[in-house]
């Protein structure tokens, strides 16, 4: 009994101790409501209308029905998942490898760290345009270099089978620096005691990595996977700058399908697509985050 009333006392004191009255939050609440809540609910409404920007007609769930009938939506969904898996998977593997390399005693460590982080700072559209030029099938530097070695380079962005993968690889090039930095923080945070204990037990380098580094980096891995997976699902800027979803529809993702509806003037349909994308990301990422975090809790 005494315990319970003590807890109530503490809670009461915590309430009183708040230095700011409730209405101090009002300006922030107004800004949040005007800039975030209102557009969100407006878009939920407009996704149910046929909307020309000049006027809108309420048509119920027709837009959603049409969106799911979109011939390239299924391929776009698969492409989005493929892209998200390739890019987040490679970022995890390469980011981890680079982080371990860059935390060991190697020459020019600081320089290499900044070189790897540099692409993160460059504008995505700039990266996209640069690589579009580099990957040109006949005049691009990549294929010209390959030709000097006697290899006939593929049409990186013009071959329907390769286009999506090429863009995903550029995404990895651009994003791996951020993953590396997160991993470096994770590696540095591992207490040296574990490695000393492992050395006494006679662990090899590989065992060190497998049984000490890898498990203790799980929080960093969870962060990298969540960030890059969400990024991959929403990917748009790089795809648009490099292929515009093409050739044909070969590298269309959900976001580019949505943008094309908007371009064609189907504003309601495109808004419905955004609602679908929002739900899809929530449905995929919320369980993923819970899964990653639960495992971490059991360590």
């Amino acid at each position, binding site marked *: 009994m005494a315990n319970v009333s003590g807890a109530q006392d503490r809670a009461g004191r915590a309430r009183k101790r708040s230095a700011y009255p409730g209405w101090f939050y009002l300006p922030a609440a107004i800004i949040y409501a005007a800039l975030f809540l209102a557009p969100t609910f407006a878009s939920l409404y407009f996704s149910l209308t046929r909307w020309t920007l000049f006027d809108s*007609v309420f048509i119920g769930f027709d837009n959603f029905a049409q969106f799911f009938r979109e011939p390239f939506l299924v391929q776009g969904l698969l492409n989005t998942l493929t892209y998200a898996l390739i890019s987040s998977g490679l970022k995890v593997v390469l980011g981890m490898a680079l982080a371990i390399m860059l935390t060991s005693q190697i020459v020019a460590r600081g320089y290499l760290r900044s070189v790897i982080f540099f692409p993160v700072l460059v504008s995505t559209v700039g990266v996209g345009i640069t690589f579009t030029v580099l990957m040109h099938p006949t005049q691009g530097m990549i294929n010209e270099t390959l030709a000097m070695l006697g290899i006939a380079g593929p049409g990186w962005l013009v071959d329907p089978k390769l286009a999506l993968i090429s863009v995903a690889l550029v995404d990895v090039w651009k994003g791996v620096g951020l993953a590396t930095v997160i991993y470096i923080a994770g590696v540095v945070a591992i207490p040296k005691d574990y490695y000393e204990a492992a050395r006494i037990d006679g662990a090899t380098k590989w065992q060190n990595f497998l049984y000490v580094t890898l498990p203790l980096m799980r929080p960093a891995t969870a962060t990298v996977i969540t960030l890059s997976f969400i990024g991959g699902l929403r990917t748009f800027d790089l795809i648009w700058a490099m292929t515009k979803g093409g050739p044909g529809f070969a590298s269309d993702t959900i976001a580019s399908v949505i943008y094309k509806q908007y371009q064609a003037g*189907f504003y309601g349909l495109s808004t419905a697509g955004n609602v679908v994308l929002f739900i899809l990301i929530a449905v995929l990422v919320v369980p993923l985050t819970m899964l990653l975090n639960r495992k971490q809790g059991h360590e």
Partner: protein
Amino acid sequence: MTKTKTSALMGASVLGMLLTASAVQAQQSGNLSILTDNGPQSVAIMEAWAEAYKAKNPDVTIDIEVRPGGGDGDNIVKTRLATGAMADVFSYNSGSLFQAINPTQNLMPLTDEPFQDNVQESFKTVVSAGGEVYGAPFAPAMGGGILYNKPIYEELGLEIPTTWDEFMANNEAIKEAGHVAVIQTYGDTWTSQLFVLSDFFNVLAEEPDFAEKFTANEAKFATSPAAMRGFERLQAVAEAGYFNADAGAATYADGVRMVAMGEGAHYPMLTFAIGAIAETAPDYLDDVGFFAQPGDNAESNGLTTWLPDSVYIPQNAANPELAKDFVAFLASPEGCEVRNEAVGATGPYMVAGCELPADVPPAVSDMLPYFEEGGQNAPALEFLSPIKGPALEQILVEVGTGSRDAASAAALYDEDVRKQAQQLGIAAW
């Protein structure tokens, strides 16, 4: 801003010369804002018009704003109209896309303006809504067909084809001689549509009521053999291996350069590309000729034509009298003269009294017979029907790159058309 001031000064300096000419008309004053697309020709001609107009009306200042072309540009135009922030004069599509900017609600009717007496009726029909005319022609009429490189034709002794089979035979000869037979430029996807869109004269020759039936949901590309042929023709050219090796990545600018300099023999394109050749490769302008896309029958060989873009005035223009006066200037013989000097002649004008200069480039003179009395021409489908599916260009890239066949492409396009028709709220869909 500095530029406007400088040009205002320049305008003032030639005022003396023009004083007698402009004294007859009431002089305008005020500030005029203009929005046009970022095509090099559009910007060049707008600037030339603005200079000429300011020379006549020294009290006028003109600001030209530039927007992107394509779907992004459409959205800028719609957004600015919807928010009441449109420039006093803006250029935009005529035909099917024109209906999508709600002209009766957003635009100022120009039906009773005196200059409309000189504008061709065929143009007025594609800028009219609810019984009112809203636009004035921004450019000459265009044709859709095949630009070809004359030196290659001379080298191989080829004749201008009047049937599709002759065209394919020419392609074979050109390929055997080691040249690129057909240029495709999928780096700019819109360029993929020409083989299908410029085949429409041949469709109408076989099915004169295709456009009405198409709008009424009674005729489909996949089930009409005549309409399907455009898709099949693209597939045939692709399968024969006549395309340039970098077709997937080449851009419209590459295609224009290639056909002008003989890096390829044929480029299916709209004739406004003649202006781009004049701009980027003027020395090669005389090497480029033009012919309509051939069909099955030499007897019924004719040209699919495009009516030009239009200039419009929004309903809430800040200075409507000045805007109308400027638009009347564009749609006058004087305006055409300015155009001829600034970007050259690219086709027949839609305004009575406008003359083409005597020395038009060969590609333009090749096109004129189709427009003359007794010439064979028909408007493109987008001027006969409000429906044009937005994904046609991507679908045709798939056909051109061999990842989809003509039959399934036509069926897929019919799906795309259905979506557009439903979004436009057209009855019977």
